[in-house]
């Protein structure tokens, strides 16, 4: 079992004909992901190494039955790409693109919620998602993930996601699904969405959560863990020693209240019973202890 994606997931790559889309699309296919289509309105009817290219997601879905998309479109086109996927009836959209304006993110997040509530958006600015051995969507290096569980990973940081996978692989611990939610101001999928899904997944027995300073997503996750999770969690928050200061002027400081520092996040997580490491290695060791005790 896994969360969000598995061996039945069929993926259309929006921007497959670009250099990044082609490179990672083909890597994902080599991994075993069902890469069924690409989109590019100017190159409809062509193919990328045998993968057919369509003008838009609606045509791609009609022809291939795609039920997920992966966006490698440059930032100015991401808003339209997200809405294209949603209009096509796609239910899982992973947006890898970085540098998307925050106002675009806020708009498409709320438009999806209002008009396409069944769509799960991951990202933007995220490494993607991998269910090891079944489906890898995005830029995660598949071979550093050991299939099979019992650990689920959710992370806000790209390279630290890899680090977490690697720490577990070195300890011969398998992963059900690893979700990189990205660190942008309005992430489509939150820590809580993933924690909730991992709690419901019978094969996931424990969860590793990698956070960063800023915002209050980790504090909200801690509250969720405290009240709604039975499975053990280990965590690491990057930016423990980042110098303190204001964030976004006065208004930003008020929105965040006392939240946002690594210390506040770690306190909230510890209070929820989470085992918190001071660096990624320590978080991996804590998870190894948890797994040994399962």
């Amino acid at each position, binding site marked *: 079992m896994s969360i969000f994606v598995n061996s039945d997931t069929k993926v259309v790559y929006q921007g497959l004909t670009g250099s990044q889309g082609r490179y990672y699309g083909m890597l994902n296919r080599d991994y075993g992901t069902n890469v069924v289509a690409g989109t590019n309105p100017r190159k409809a009817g062509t193919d990328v190494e045998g993968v057919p290219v369509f003008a838009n997601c609606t045509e791609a879905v009609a022809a291939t039955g795609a039920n997920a998309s992966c966006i490698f479109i440059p930032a100015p086109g991401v808003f339209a790409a997200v809405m294209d996927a949603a209009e096509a009836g796609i239910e899982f959209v992973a947006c890898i693109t970085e540098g998307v*304006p925050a106002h675009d993110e806020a708009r498409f997040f709320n438009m999806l919620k209002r008009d396409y509530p069944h769509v799960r958006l991951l990202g933007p600015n995220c490494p993607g998602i991998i269910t090891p051995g079944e489906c890898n969507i995005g830029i995660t290096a598949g071979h550093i993930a050991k299939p099979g569980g019992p650990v689920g990973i959710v992370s806000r940081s790209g390279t630290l996601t890899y680090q977490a996978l690697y720490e577990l692989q070195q300890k011969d611990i398998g992963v059900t699904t690893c979700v990189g939610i990205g660190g942008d101001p309005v992430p489509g999928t939150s820590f809580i969405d993933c924690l909730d899904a991992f709690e419901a997944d019978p094969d996931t027995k424990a969860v590793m959560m990698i956070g960063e300073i800023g915002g209050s997503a980790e504090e909200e996750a801690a509250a969720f863990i405290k009240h709604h999770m039975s499975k053990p969690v280990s965590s690491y928050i990057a930016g423990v020693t980042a110098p303190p200061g204001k964030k976004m002027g006065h208004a930003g400081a008020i929105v965040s209240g006392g939240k946002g520092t690594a210390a506040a996040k770690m306190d909230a997580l510890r209070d929820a019973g989470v085992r918190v490491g001071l660096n*990624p290695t320590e978080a991996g060791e804590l998870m190894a202890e948890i797994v040994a005790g399962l």
Partner: protein
Amino acid sequence: MAGLSFLALRHQRSIRYLMRSAPMLPAVDLFEYQGKQFFKGYGMPVSDGEVAFSVDEAVAAAERLGTPVMVKAQVHTGGRGKAGGVKFAASVDDVQNHASNILGLDINGHIVRRLWIEKASDISEEYYASFTLDRSAKKHLGMLSAEGGVEIETVAAENPDAISKVLVDPAEGLTEEAARAWVEGANLNPAATDQAVEILRKLYVAYTEGDADLVEINPLILTPEGRVHVLDAKVTLDANAVFRHDDYAQYDETQPRDEREEAAHAKGLQYVGLAGSVGVIANGAGLAMSTVDVVNQVGGKPANFLDIGGGANAQVMANALEVINNDPDVRAIFINIFGGITRGEEVANGIIGALDAVDIEAPIVLRLDGTNAAEGREILAPHLNEKLVMEPTMLDAARRAVAMAAA
């Protein structure tokens, strides 16, 4: 951490940089006068004024505008008034006097290099207004208070009911009805209501169409004649939106950066200057933050945060080493690379290429892990010496770098 508080300027910028995800551009802070020009472009009422870089220019501006005027320091920090950076000038002589006092003034570590000379306004009431993103609600938050002109944090702490809030769904926008209800909830002088609604709806348009992270007016004033008017402006723009705003380039030019940050910016590197002696290079923002963490945890002081992104190729590595090499405080360099898609061999060859291209003074400690790390380490092995050492883990490498920096 309290001991680092003297670095207020860098801290404020670095924390905000770090708090956004990377790799990305820092946010762009506007000076007050730029913010007012930005607001004016969206039809909001601001005072006439001119920028001055010298006392003579300030005097000439005041003569053109006609006294009385305000002489206002233009710096990217709050507390200007308390620091003596904002003065009323009844006459041109006053302007001369105040301008010469304010230019060169140090306000929270910011040296005043430019002034805004603006026609003075009579004030009967001062309000506060802002929009920013509420990350928890994933909606825009508008705040309005009849208690303006003071630090809004104080109002929020002591009298939170004095702040009227509105959450705006970004998919719907701010309707006239919602804006009116919001304004009525703030208990402004009734004479101000209609104009405030109009100005705040324009402020919302400026915030969204202008791609701002923050727009803030403090104070928004009511004059004795009954006009509502924008008397101050704080605007932070989202640098990710630069592709649809040609005017961002002029604001980017006026961002305060130290020499190291300027050099890194010119090379397109994600760099934040800190005050320590261990130069840090890592691939990925999370790992770079994590590297700063471990250097601190083993008793060292990082000189910087530098994220070279996922690829870690020779040119980017050479650029990064050059920037760090030019920092006279750096005594040791910690390169922390985790290969994901990028394989260890490529990373190793990148580092060797960079070392050939740049003459590095400080010793380098390298940690290379992840995909094909063993192959990468093998490539590097013949190049190791007392100036280039390798350690197997992040913690070991941090300890070694800190020891070398202290030697």
